[in-house]
Each structure stands twice: as structure tokens, then as C-alpha cells.
């Protein structure tokens, strides 16, 4: 079927609206000129400058380990929660619990950040990389459990029963049968958690302390002093990582869905 003129125009407009700013940003990150809005020829020098910058490298490292560890914690907790909510014996208030686990998805980030900050202060936890990890694990866990439970719902229960029937313990049945089959969904959940953590500015700003600055925080604080091409380069890198994460996550989810 050929697309009508109207469809072509609205599609183009829609995508332009979505991606033009990002495209401009990426283009200007290769700008020779020091001025952000004046094109002075192609160059990768701002990337070079960026990689010389200690503060950038520090922030990159914090961002990376926070994302890695928080995604891993979220994956374990989220998978466990999904398993119990989908599989576990029906207990009173199960529907309430299922609902509650999704609540942080719609909670304003400011509120999540603020409440976590209050929690950390009240239990006297020193704020820094560790608290960001905890905070990120908290909200990523919801996403992981959403992804994993949608896989578990379509999972043939008799596979687990067959494992038990053949002498496996509950844990063996999970480890040898369930987990390998839902692995793509678990991996997609992890990637999602990783990407969300890379992305986050609001919650990280609330719960971080001195010495723990993530890339989004770094960008935000530098932009306040004026946009430099260096920031464009940094943003472009971040966009690339997030895009990669989302693409891999959606591919693994798709593969997971195609499995029997």
C-alpha cells in the first residue's frame, strides 16, 4: 500500500519534532568552532578535550558503576518479585501487591527522590555512589518486574511441573528450567535498568553526595555556566549509549517473545 501524502507529511513532521534537536546536538558536537551555534567545519576535537577532562572521566566512571550495580540488584529483586507475584500461591492482597510494585513507574521522580533522601537521612546513611545505587535499584526493579512478569505469564507452567516431577527441587526447577527460558526477558530487564540509571538526573541529584557526580549531573551543572561544544560531545556519547541499550533491550525482548 502506498502512503498518502498526508501520512508522509505527518510522519516526517512527527519524527522531525522528535529527533531534530538530537540531530542538531550530535552535529554540533563535531563542530570545529568554539561557538555552539556557528558552524566552523568538521572536527572531533571536543571528544579529545572531553577525554582529557578528569572531572568528566570521574563522572563517567561513577555513572557506569552505579548503572551496572543498580541494574544488577534491580534484576535480581525484580525477577524475584515477578516470580512470586505471577507464580506464588494466591495470598490475600496479591492484587494489591501487584499494583503497588508498579506504582513507582508513575510516581513523579521528584517525589521518589525526595522520599529516598529523607529515608537515607533518617537512617544516617552517608550519601554518595552507594545511595545512588540503592535509589536506582529501587525504581529499576519495577521495570524489571514488569518485563519479567509479562514473560512469566505466557510461560507454560507444566515445564516447571515436569522438572519437579523428574525429581528437581523448587530451586533446581527455577535455575535449570525457568531461568534459562526467561533469560532474554531478564536480560532485557537488566538493560532497561542500566539505561534508566544512565539517564537519571532528578533522583541522582537528590540522593548523591559530595564526590559522586553522574554524567547527567555533570552536564546539567556545566550547562548552567553556558553550553560548550564539549557538552554536546558528552551528550552525544550519552545518547549513543542509551540508544544502544534500548535497541539491545528491545531485540532481546523480541527474541524472548518468539521463544515457545
Amino acid at each position, binding site marked *: 500500500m502506498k502512503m498518502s501524502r498526508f501520512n508522509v507529511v505527518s510522519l516526517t513532521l512527527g519524527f522531525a519534532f522528535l529527533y531534530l534537536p538530537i540531530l542538531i546536538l550530535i552535529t554540533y558536537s563535531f563542530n570545529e568552532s568554539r561557538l555552539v551555534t556557528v558552524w566552523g567545519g568538521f572536527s572531533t576535537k571536543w571528544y579529545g578535550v572531553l577525554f582529557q577532562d578528569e572531572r568528566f572521566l570521574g563522572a563517567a566512571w561513577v555513572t557506569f558503576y552505579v548503572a551496572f550495580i543498580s541494574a544488577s540488584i534491580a534484576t535480581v529483586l525484580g525477577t524475584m518479585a515477578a516470580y512470586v507475584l505471577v507464580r506464588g500461591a494466591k495470598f490475600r492482597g496479591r492484587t494489591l501487591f501487584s499494583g503497588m510494585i508498579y506504582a513507582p513507574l508513575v510516581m513523579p521522580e521528584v517525589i521518589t527522590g525526595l522520599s529516598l533522601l529523607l529515608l537515607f537521612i533518617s537512617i544516617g546513611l552517608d550519601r554518595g555512589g552507594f545511595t545512588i545505587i540503592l535509589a536506582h535499584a529501587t525504581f529499576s526493579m519495577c521495570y524489571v518486574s514488569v518485563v519479567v512478569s509479562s514473560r512469566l505469564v505466557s510461560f*507454560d507452567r*507444566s*515445564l516447571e*511441573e*515436569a*522438572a*519437579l*516431577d*523428574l*525429581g*528437581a*527441587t523448587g530451586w*533446581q526447577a527455577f535455575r*535449570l*528450567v525457568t531461568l*534459562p*527460558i526467561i533469560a532474554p526477558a531478564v536480560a532485557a530487564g537488566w538493560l532497561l535498568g542500566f539505561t534508566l540509571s544512565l539517564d537519571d538526573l532528578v533522583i541522582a541529584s537528590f540522593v548523591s553526595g559530595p564526590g559522586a557526580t553522574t554524567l547527567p549531573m555533570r552536564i546539567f551543572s556545566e550547562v548552567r555556566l553556558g553550553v560548550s561544544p564539549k557538552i554536546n560531545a558528552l551528550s552525544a556519547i550519552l545518547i549513543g549509549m542509551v540508544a544502544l541499550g534500548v535497541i539491545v533491550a528491545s531485540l532481546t525482548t523480541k527474541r524472548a517473545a518468539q*521463544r*515457545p
Partner: protein
Amino acid sequence: MTDDVFAPWNDPGQSPLIRYANVTKKFGEFTAIDNVSIDIFPGEFFALLGPSGCGKTTLMRMLAGFETPTSGIISLGGQDMGNVPPNKRPVNMMFQSYALFPHMNVWDNIAFGLRRDGLPKDQVAARVEEMLRLVQLQKFAKRKPDAISGGQRQRVALARSLAKAPKVLLLDEPLGALDKKLRQETQFELVDIQEKTGTTFMIVTHDQEEAMTVSTRIAVMDEGIIKQIDTPASLYEAPNSRYVADFIGDVNLIEGDWRGDTLHWAEGQTPLAVQSDAPVGKAWLALRPEKIAISKDQAKADNAIPGQVIDIAYLGNLSTYVVEIPGGQKIRAQATNARRLSRRDITWNDTVWLSWTSTAGLVLSE
């Protein structure tokens, strides 16, 4: 009955391997299994037969340990299974969906149970090879379940559930997903494997032909209760109710008033003579089509009713005649086709006589 006939259920000296004692299972308010008692003996090929939804799977899953009876006791070899978890029962189940592990190849699927027992590697390998030979799948050992045919998957599932040499093998509609021809072949294979391994089989099916072909005894179920447990031949020849008579094979049921020696079935018609000790009262005469003779002239027999041929189904070796008798009921009579078609003298709309002996039918009051 001679000694070499396999009939442990008639031998008071034998004790059952599986015993369901007054088992009831409720799902909420709904009673899926209602006070069922069954004894199954070692070496039996026992079939649970009934329409879809009558509770066959539930009955089987309680023995495997996946459902807990609401009341009653299930024991295996004299031991109450009440507190034994599924992975500790000497019972293996072949699932209706086969439940093959999709991420493991055929070999690993079969080895799964053996490995859980912590058997040494070489023993696992030897046993898996033996199972592969038994189901003739040696060539497919390295394939994943999605790379083999439905019939092969069925055999992998069978091999996997037999690998641990369980005391009892449970088969839930094992042949349901196969086409008719493959199903018949597999039925004989199943019987063969059951005899070879000496395992007690309990099979669930809604196909009466399948149950008749493979089993030593059949429990006919209806809505959570057992209507009758007997050998295929006894169920066919001596059903205890209209439900069983109708479920097992084809039957004509003539309703009437049973007076102890004759059934008064229609105003102004000669009562039907039957030898039966059924209690007098309202009853049905159950007559199998092949026990009724059909002829153009009135035959000398205990019972003879006139009628008109309204349909003939030609089945090759047999023909089924549908005959309308006085009162309008349609009776099916079956005759073997000993003569060529052109020589047979009964055709549509002919007036014929149906006749049978006084021992041909059964009087059923239920």
C-alpha cells in the same frame, strides 16, 4: 478363569499398588472429584475415560502430587502420599503438552531426571542411550525439541518419563496431538513398552477406542464420579448404566416397563423377552447393533419387531441399517456383508424384521 490370565483385581491375595480411598477434590465451591475410590494393581495399564472436563487430569495430578485432595487418601505401595512432595514420589508423568524443555536437546531432556538423582555420568549416559533405543530416537539425540516432529516429541516425552524407571507412569492424553494413523501405531507401541518395562501405566483419554485398545481396565468417569471400573470386554458386554453403555461403543436403548421377564415398551406391541435379574420398574433395554439380526421375513427368535429401513450405512465389511420401529424409534442393526452388494436384498424403505435372542440385550435400570 485360568491362572495365566492377568486379572489381579479378582485375586484377593493381591494388594493394590495405587489406592484412591474416598478422594474428593474441590476447587472453591466446585467439586471436581467426588468421593472416588480406585485400586490399581502392579503391571496394570489402567485407563481413565470420560468426556472433557470430567476430572481425569485432576485425578491424575493428585497422584503426581500437583494437587492435594480436599479429603480422602491416596496411597502408593501402601504408603500414604499425603505429605510427599512431587519430586519425592516414585511416579513420573507424561504431560498432555509433553512439557519438553525447549532449551535442552533430546539427550539432555531424557537425562534431566537421572541427573537430579546424582547418578554417575556413565550410568546416566547408558540409561539415556537405552531409552533412546527404546523409542528409536538415537539419531535425534542432539536435536532441540522444536527441530523434531510431533510424533518424535511424544516419544521423547515418553522416554524422559520412563528414564527413572518409575513404579507408576502417568500419561495424560499422550496421543491427543497425533494424527489418527500415528495414534494407532503408537497405541501398540505403548502397550509393547508397557509390557517390556513392566511399569504400571495410568492413562487419561477421552477416546473410548484408545482406552479399549491399550488398557487392562477402564474407569469410566462422568462429572467427577466413577460410573464403572471394569475390563474393556466387561464394560462393553455388561455396562451398569446407560451412560457407560452409550460411552463404550454404539448401543440402542429401548425404554419400557420391566416386569421381571419382559419389557413392555409400546402400547399394543409384544413385550420383549429378556433374561435379566434387574429390579422391576422403569428400565431400558440396551442392545448392541451387531446383536440384532435383520431379515425380510419374520424370523423365529425370542424377539422380533417389524420396521422400515430408513437408512443404510455401508462400511465395507459391515453395513449398518437404521430401522424405524412402531412408535417411531430408530434402531441400528449391523450385518456383515458376506455377499456382494448386488446380491443383497434389503434396500431403502423395505419392511424388515429385527430379531434377537433373550440373552442378546441387557436391562438397565439406571
